């Protein structure tokens, strides 16, 4: 099969569009027992913070219909240990690396960018702005256009033009297109859609919220229609902005759906928990589907669902449910 699967997110090039999702592959090491990391498009690492963090109390997960809630609380070793131990190991494996960063203040994001900008072997930064902003009433950065903009702006200034910046947005907003507009204007090279939806499960035995952290993030196939909608809306509004799609992708068909909606790359998250090889399986299935559909390049499939749309614009996609 001579199909060209390569893709770009801003200036970064990847041999295939299928990546791991942040927080669902740790720093890659554990997955390497199941397939060579260099065979997929890229490893997106667990969001790293400036300091080491123990995370939230357990239980940290609850299974839900076709999905799950997690409330890890960004447990991690901190940026210094990450740069010293994890990056070199991934480089050694020949993997493409996208580092996800997270902070509680605008400055923390800038600090992370400063620490990372001269580290060799990184293809892009994913800026996870779905964390509570301690400076602004604890409101999640990605839920507020001004805070979203401030984070990306700060990171962009530090990074300069060197590394592509992908802003990861939350679906828990009234108007995701408006948030995408802000981060793109602030200099993001692309957007990652979507992070988890805020959810809760109550344990009917104990009659208390099941998770130690009470609320958690909903992921998995259950949320795929929300992710596809978000990708479609943002691609429609900004056809030139590359999108890294994610949310419930479990098969090549699902990745293809996101690509048709407008994604240039697709991350596989929760599916890895059910199938350690999921990322590679998705990639192989996608290749077969693209070939069957007669595409010779991945690029030509990106946003394909919009093409025929241009003809019948009268029925607006900005409609609601019932």
């Amino acid at each position, binding site marked *: 099969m001579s199909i060209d699967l390569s893709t770009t997110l801003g200036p970064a090039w990847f041999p295939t569009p299928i990546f791991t999702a942040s*927080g*669902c*592959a*740790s720093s890659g*090491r*554990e*997955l390497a*027992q*199941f397939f060579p990391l260099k065979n997929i498009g890229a490893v997106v690492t*667990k969001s790293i913070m400036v300091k*080491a963090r*123990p*995370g*939230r*109390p*357990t*239980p*940290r*997960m609850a*299974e839900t*219909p*076709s*999905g*799950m809630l*997690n409330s*890890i609380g960004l*447990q991690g070793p901190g940026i210094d240990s990450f740069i010293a131990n994890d990056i070199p190991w991934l480089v050694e494996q020949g993997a493409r690396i996208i580092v996800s960063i997270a902070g509680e203040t605008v400055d923390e994001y800038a600090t992370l960018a400063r620490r990372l900008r001269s580290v060799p072997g990184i293809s892009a930064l994913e800026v996870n702005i779905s964390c509570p902003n301690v400076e602004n009433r604890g409101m999640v950065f990605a839920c507020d256009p001004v805070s979203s903009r401030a984070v990306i702006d700060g990171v962009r200034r530090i990074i300069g033009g060197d590394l592509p910046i992908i802003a990861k947005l939350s679906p828990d907003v009234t108007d995701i297109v408006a948030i995408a507009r802000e981060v793109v204007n602030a200099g993001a090279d692309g957007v990652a859609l979507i992070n988890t939806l805020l959810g809760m499960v109550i344990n009917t035995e104990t009659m208390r919220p099941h998770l*130690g952290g009470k609320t958690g993030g909903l992921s*998995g*196939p259950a949320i795929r229609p929300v992710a596809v909608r978000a990708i479609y809306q943002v691609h429609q509004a900004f056809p030139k902005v590359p999108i890294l799609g994610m949310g419930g992708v479990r098969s090549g068909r699902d990745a293809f759906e996101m690509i048709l909606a407008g994604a240039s790359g697709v991350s596989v998250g*929760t*599916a*890895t*928990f*059910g*199938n*350690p*090889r999921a990322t590679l399986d998705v990639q192989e299935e996608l290749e077969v589907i693209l070939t069957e559909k007669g595409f010779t390049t991945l690029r030509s499939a990106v946003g394909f669902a919009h093409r025929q749309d241009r003809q019948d614009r009268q029925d607006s996609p900005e409609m609601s449910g019932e």
Partner: protein
Amino acid sequence: MSTINRYAQQISAQVLSNKRVGQYHQILISVGDVVKYCRPGNFIAIAVGGDNSSMVLRRAFALSRVSDRGEFGGTLELIVAPHGSGSRWLCSQGEGALLDVVTPLGVAFGIPTEPVTALLIGGGYGSAPLFGLAEVLKSRGCHVDMILGASSSSKIYAPLEGKRSVNSLKIYTEDSSSGIPGRVTDSLEEIISEGAIDVIYSCGPMAMLSAISTIAQSCEVVHQCAVEESMACGIGVCMTCVLPVRQDDGSIAMKRSCIDGPVMDGANVAWEVVGKIQETKE
């Protein structure tokens, strides 16, 4: 860590038999060559619910007994309590059914290089990995005593063949329906000192493991316990299964029970803050 799960494989395993034993199901599955790498204390992660399942996560089960001989080649025995929807589905799978499994996973029980006197303590289906462990210990010349406990007699899993592999077996039930009335920890100190126990191996509910740890520490006996935290991935990538573990420098780190466990040194687990900890100095 890079050697953990090194031999883990995702394979299709056939159910060879599924028998009800008390409140449990004893399920024998055929796994082929991967059996060579399976040790007592390792676990298996099984996809549940079939092709169109709404359950997206695998379920973890301790390997009860591992055999690489016999007409079916490599086989694993699991002891499953029909608890919620996933384990009930598994218990409903009949002979011939195919399971999607990943195994062997996690850290196995450490086996002493010298012949020692070992005490194996199991609660409920926690006895599952202990019979396989007992066989291995006996083959290394160890003396093996076993204590099993449960709320009631039907929750004691103690197969006949299993009993043969231990030197002594005591059973405790809380409702006095069989064996000694009470809990496995009731006379543990006496048993340890009278039996001149060198090492305790345990598996069962967290509260039991915690109680054993306290006693083991006061008696200065090594305690290897197989913990059970709810796990989303089972392979170390999600961080849901963490336990607070004391480090050499006295700080507490949140360790993954799937990959830094399930077998852990009971003396290091910070039992008092399990499920509570939010801040530690790392």
